[in-house]
């Protein structure tokens, strides 16, 4: 054991100049705090895990679909220097960004081919790090193409401050954790304060929460909202809330199973659409966006921090956000929306660097706090969120001065994603599309369900749906 520690330390010192040996220690603003943390991380690593082979790769390939992580790394990973739009340097290693937009599934197609060719790829072409989204994470995580974090020398202790649901998403069927995220996008109920005062007689987050505490209360409130001439929201807004709280996986023994909570979404939504309490607008469309102004007469949206920060158009005159007219509470059930996970690719020739990037970007509290403050990401650290919850600086104008972090932290704690499957992306998309026909009266419930089953089997030929 001792020898191992020594050799590891030797590697660490050798490479420390090239790679960031202790995560975030060079970050200017946190000079005093960070080295201690970095030191701790190294220690725990040494005790439990086999040493990593020395990094031999000269090129560090990162696969992703947009520039989000690139800008995070540029801003918060001290040793990274940008060369041009798709190239950077960490020490002597050239970082290459392979960015493919996800439109038309191009990102996954591209990543699939690259991973399948990983073994035979030349050293400079091997993927080192790739990014995934939650909806399809298991497609990659539940294969040998993604490395268990434990093989990288990252321990449970390193990750203890992260929210459990962010780990559920990237835990494979053998219980191995294979990825990590710097974000914890717990989401909740964003309500129109004016409308809440008018209909519920209060705009206090706790009292509004009481009015939508579960789906029965939510449905009652929705009817009142409809009577007052408002629309609650779109059925597509509530879908994620229901689908995050299912009691079983979408696919069991290669068979598509429609969960009770999904059934409930279908029935609740149909009733509310018929009562004109909810509409069927597609997310991001013009009709859906009309609720951002008072004239749109929409009672609420469902969304996480990035949603109210960037999607409610606070900079635009006349929007509710601009007048500070939104409020935030947890809503009927806890759920999450969005986030990017980092996965190490099996066969990477820069394992130490991969490890350090994952540790720095997803566990270093100083870095995470910086990200929270600079980029308004809701970060994946219980400690940091707690700090922000008790801090005045978390108060947001667009929420009428409310600090949403207590609710965000509470939500993130409660999200339970033990029931995700590799088929979630396809099943969720197809169900919403098919059910819209039922809600609008274009098909019966059974016809719409048949349409859904047909579409799922087309997407995943190995499944059965009957």
């Amino acid at each position, binding site marked *: 054991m001792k020898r191992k520690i020594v050799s590891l330390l030797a590697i660490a010192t050798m490479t420390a100049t090239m790679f960031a040996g202790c995560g975030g220690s060079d970050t200017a603003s946190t000079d005093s705090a960070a080295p201690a943390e970095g030191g701790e991380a190294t220690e725990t690593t040494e005790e439990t895990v086999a040493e990593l082979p020395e990094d031999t790769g000269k090129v560090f390939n990162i696969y992703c*679909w*947009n*520039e*989000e992580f*690139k*800008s995070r790394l540029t801003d918060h990973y001290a040793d990274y220097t940008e060369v*041009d*739009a*798709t190239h950077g340097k960490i020490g002597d290693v050239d970082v290459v*960004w*392979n*960015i*493919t*937009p*996800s*439109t*038309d599934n*191009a990102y996954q*197609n*591209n990543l699939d*081919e690259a991973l399948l*060719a990983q073994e035979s790829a030349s050293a400079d072409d091997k993927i080192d790090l790739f990014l995934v989204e939650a909806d399809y994470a298991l497609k990659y995580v539940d294969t040998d193409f993604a490395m268990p974090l434990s093989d990288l020398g990252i321990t449970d202790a390193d990750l203890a401050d992260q929210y459990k649901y962010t780990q559920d998403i990237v835990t494979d069927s053998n219980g191995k954790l294979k990825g990590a995220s710097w974000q914890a996008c717990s989401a909740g109920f964003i309500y129109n304060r004016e409308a809440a005062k008018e209909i519920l007689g209060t705009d206090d987050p706790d009292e509004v929460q009481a009015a939508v505490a579960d789906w029965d209360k939510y449905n009652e409130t929705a009817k009142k909202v409809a009577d007052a001439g408002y629309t609650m929201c779109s059925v597509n807004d509530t879908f994620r809330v229901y689908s995050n709280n299912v009691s079983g996986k979408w696919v069991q023994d290669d068979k598509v199973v429609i969960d009770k909570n999904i059934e409930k979404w279908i029935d609740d939504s149909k009733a509310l659409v018929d009562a004109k309490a909810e509409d069927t607008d597609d997310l991001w469309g*013009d009709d859906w*966006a*009309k609720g*951002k*102004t008072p004239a749109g007469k929409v009672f609420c949206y469902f969304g996480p921090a*990035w*949603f109210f*920060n*960037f*999607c409610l*158009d606070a*900079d*635009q005159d006349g*929007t509710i956000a601009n007048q500070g007219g939104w409020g935030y509470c947890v809503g009927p059930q806890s759920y999450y929306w969005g986030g990017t996970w980092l996965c190490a690719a099996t066969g990477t020739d820069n394992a130490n660097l991969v490890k350090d990037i994952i540790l720095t970007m997803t566990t270093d509290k100083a870095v995470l706090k910086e990200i929270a403050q600079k*980029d*308004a990401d809701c970060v994946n650290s219980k400690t940091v969120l707690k700090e922000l919850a008790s801090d005045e600086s978390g108060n947001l104008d667009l929420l009428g001065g409310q600090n949403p972090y207590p609710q965000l932290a509470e939500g993130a704690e409660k999200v339970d994603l033990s029931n995700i499957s590799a088929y979630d992306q396809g099943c969720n998309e197809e169900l919403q599309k098919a059910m819209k026909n039922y809600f609008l009266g274009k098909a019966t419930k059974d016809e719409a369900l048949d349409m859904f089953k047909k579409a799922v089997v087309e997407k995943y030929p190995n499944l059965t749906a009957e």
Partner: protein
Amino acid sequence: MDANILSYDKKVREDNNMAENTSSVTKKKDNGASIHARRFVAYLVLILVSFLCLFWFYVLFINATRSHSELSQGFTAIPSSHLIDNWVNLKSGTLPIFNGMVNSLIISVATATLATYFSTMTAYAIHAYDFKLKNFMFTFILMIMMIPTQVTALGFLQLIDKMHLDNSAIPLIVPAIASPAVFFYMKQYMDSTLPLSLVEAARIDGSGEFRTFNQIVVPLMKPAIAVQAIFSFVGSWNNYFTPALVLHDDTKKTLPILIAQLRNADWLKFDMGQVYMMIAFSIFPVIIVYLLLSRFIVGGVTLGGVKG
């Protein structure tokens, strides 16, 4: 002039019946009133059609002047004040848009050139010569024209992977040499306008076959080449599917991929104003290319149709 054709409706019906109705055409001389009526209808339709064609560019322009938040408020007909902001944001962003334009230009120009030149050559081979496989080849090319491109796309990608042409413009350009639809057009155009007597006259003058093709046939085919050059150029310019799967380096990417990337941006950077600005930016060069090439077609028709 034919007095029967007074109204738009009637004209449409006549057009549908095409040649069959020729016998019913009378030899009445047209009078001033009917000419005026027809001209009025023609202008009315043309103005309406032009409006429908230009309207989209107006909306694109309007949207390019609006900020992201304004855009999410829905449609307006009045431009806003963010044109310069959007442009500056787009230009100072990390996407290499000028690079993208150069890439798009290279790929599209090369595609259009190869597609038209070699299709003319292929069509000429079938049109001007008699050889054993001639009919077979013609039928064969027509048949492959009917194969949907979407399916072979996957096999095509596997192939270029094996050929190590990944991340290169070559697989986007070279296959244009074999463009069945362009060939078919060239062949049909030759059928209607290229007399073989011209070719024979050239032979008598001692011109080699290759020279005859380049110096006599190609110039005669100018309108057809211009038409297909425009179509190939535009098709290649707006192509997203294949380039997105082939090109990985930002510096090698074409404009449609960059647009998709801009629309995929994370929430901190997502900006529809920039997207519309980028769309406007990427349409600009096509319009110029189109205007340059369209002179061959537009000018030509006047020559052919109105002369005398």
